[in-house]
């Protein structure tokens, strides 16, 4: 009984996100012809990629049974670090500096979780406030601008004048992380930790190192997203990327990665990001006020969770509770 319903729900979950993307595209194409214009579609993809990059990192965190609520703050922090370095040291060192900043925040999260034994939820929530604060101190609460320095624009340039840079970055990241997850020891260990931490430990997995690794990756992806966002607006400040953590978690969940850990769906995450970006874009084109977009994403998240949690749905306990 449960086995069969599992098969159905797995089928449904594997294809539901792709199906949802197609339906949304069809509906939007029908409602507003502008939606299907090439540069609009590229725009959707670029926006999806920006959330998708940090979403891929978040997918690993969720696959390892954890969360990272500090990615929005980390993105803002890395954006500010990079932008402050670019004028004096150039684009390359600026970007490396931003990535290091993200890695340091991520690694700190991991160490706090394993060594101080603070649950990831709490540790990263505290880190969110700490990092926002540090960024405010670093920037003295002011905006950083980069007028007249075209170098930073490399992050938003289009390849062959068509494909936006974020899309290239997210696809490269997808390829690398897919390889890591399916082909490497670290990837296997991430899933083992997410599936059953005590069992992983007893199998000789160095669970603390795995968790440090996961959070470092999340931090780096957050930094990438943060730098791209500030390159887009040519501004960096401590308030950028507010709420990014929830967007990132939302696209992972909408993409079908189980919140219980142990399983991973990187492609799903990107499709989730495309779905959210397409809906937001469509609503814009339809002149729906921006406030409604927030509601839409929330409803989408609930729908995805209802399907996702259905994985652990046990008709027996459900019925017994009903009685």
């Amino acid at each position: 009984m449960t086995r069969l319903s599992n098969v159905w729900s797995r089928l449904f979950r594997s294809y539901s996100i792709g199906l949802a993307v197609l339906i949304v595209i069809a509906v939007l194409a029908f409602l507003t012809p502008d939606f299907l214009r090439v540069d609009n579609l590229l725009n959707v993809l670029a926006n999806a990629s920006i959330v998708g990059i940090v979403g891929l990192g978040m997918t690993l965190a969720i696959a390892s049974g954890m969360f990272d609520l500090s990615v929005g703050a980390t993105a803002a922090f890395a954006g500010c670090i990079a932008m402050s370095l670019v004028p004096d040291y150039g684009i390359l060192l600026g970007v490396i500096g931003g990535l290091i900043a993200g890695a340091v925040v991520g690694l700190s999260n991991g160490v706090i979780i394993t060594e101080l034994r603070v649950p990831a939820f709490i540790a990263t929530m505290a880190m969110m406030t700490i990092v926002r604060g540090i960024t405010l101190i670093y920037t003295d609460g002011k905006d950083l601008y980069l007028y007249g320095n075209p170098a930073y624009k490399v992050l938003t340039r289009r390849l062959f004048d068509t494909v936006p840079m974020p899309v290239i970055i997210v696809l490269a990241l997808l390829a690398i992380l897919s390889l890591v997850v399916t082909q490497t020891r670290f990837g296997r260990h991430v899933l083992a930790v997410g599936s059953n931490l005590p069992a992983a430990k007893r199998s000789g997995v160095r669970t603390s190192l795995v968790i440090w690794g996961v959070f470092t990756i999340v931090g780096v992806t957050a930094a990438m997203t943060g730098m791209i966002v500030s390159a887009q607006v040519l501004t960096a400040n401590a308030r950028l990327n507010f709420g990014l953590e929830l967007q990132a978690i939302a696209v992972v969940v909408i993409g079908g990665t189980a919140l219980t850990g142990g399983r991973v769906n990187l492609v799903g995450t990107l499709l989730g990001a495309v779905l959210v970006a397409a809906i937001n874009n469509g609503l814009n084109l339809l002149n729906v006020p921006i406030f409604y977009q927030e509601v839409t994403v929330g409803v989408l998240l609930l729908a995805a969770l209802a399907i996702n949690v259905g994985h652990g749905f046990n008709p027996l306990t459900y019925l017994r509770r009903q009685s």
Partner: protein
Amino acid sequence: MSVPGDCGPPLLRAQGISRRFPGVLALDNVDFDVSPGEVHALVGENGAGKSTLINIMAGVYQPSAGTLEVKGRRMVLPNPASAQQAGINVIFQEFSLIPDLSVAENIFLNREATRGLRIDWDTMHRRTAEVCRLLQIELDPKVAVRELPVAQQQLVEIARALAFDAQVVVMDEPTAALSEVEIDRLLQLVRSLADRGVAVVYVSHKLGEVFGVADRITVLRDGKRILTEPRSALTEEQVVSAMVGRELVHTECPPRTPGKVVLAVRGLGSGKAVRNVSFELRAGEVLGLAGLMGSGCTAAVETLFGLRPMTSGEVMLSGKALLMHGPRAAIRAGIGYVPEDRKRAGILPDLSILHNITIGVLERIRRLAVIDAKKEQSIMDEYGGKLSIRYSSPAQRAANLSGGNQQKVILARALAENCQVLLLAEPTRGVDVGAKAEIYSLIDMLVESGIAVLLQSSELPELIRLADRCLVFSSGEPRGELVRGELTQPAVMALATGLANGQAELKLLRRDPLGQEAA
């Protein structure tokens, strides 16, 4: 004690029950009945259809075919509430108590005694006390269920059934989480429920208990009823072969030829939990560790695997002192471990069988950073074949395997790590009778191949079957060693409890169905 036959007409009768789930016929034309004053045991391996039948009696599932009669009247039970109204109360393995509410609140949940709008606490506490008196159990009506040990929580469930005026009580694996002594008390309680005229359906796969308490026994296999007979007409062997569907060869322990000492432990201690443990373990030998719950034998195994800090003593593995840095160090030194709690600490449910087996050896089979899929598969083939793990594909998720097969996967994982010493904690807990026999022969085979095994088990028959020698623990320390031949239940119990032989035997009645009858 009631005798089958004089129990009068059945209180609950299920006739020709079939239940089809998409793709599976979980129950196939099953008849089952239970009379007032009778304990009717329902046994069968996992997947035999026991839980489906219980759920039909509980109103959770609807039969695809067949009828239910309560006191001779046809009944349809569309939901659990209607089953309760009909006097059928099911105590599921997973309790349905609310931990933060008190005993009385749980017993009267949804039927609270009220005076106007206010809950009438006095009446509720008084009636709870009455029910407890009836059951001859001691429970404080005001204490929160959370505070109670599992055994007492079980009593609350039973008290609730009785307070509901249940005429039929169905108990699903009620002793799964209980200790020896608690099991004895529970079985007495079941008997007294029956003597009070309640019809009891007792679901279990522990035959010792079933033979100790049941009047009649029904065996299910693959959804079909195989037999229903009075207990006095059956032997344990008959029931086992009905459950497994074949004669179970009762294998004896093969002769062993221990080699040189592999593991030497001197004065091992871990805080207060483990003290003064010294022994030598040879290649091709099984050393048993016995003891009641909390006696330190489980903790001793955990210390040897580095899961607990070693606070004193030394451990030599093949002549080299072992540094206790945790599980990883132990594995690298050549110690394999099969943990006691398979679900919590053993299996990686979301990972495939293949990945479960190779999780500890990925380092050995990688080329640069990438795992060598061919080598990985060959490890799977080697150990999966050796242990005859049954699966549909190596990519199958471990969560979907039976308990016995999961246990074999964990064994394969330990073996793949090339261990010389294998620590087995409760290796057959929660596995079928058939799988159990298979795991015993596997252990024989491994020992034969020269692996040294340390076996911690709370099942004495298991220790007797497998162990060459046995250390018996009590309050953190080994109290004595018994070699094969001396290894009997009274001897082990005498050391484990520190009592004289005669007194120890009293506690062991449960293990001996005849003793139960005499009691």
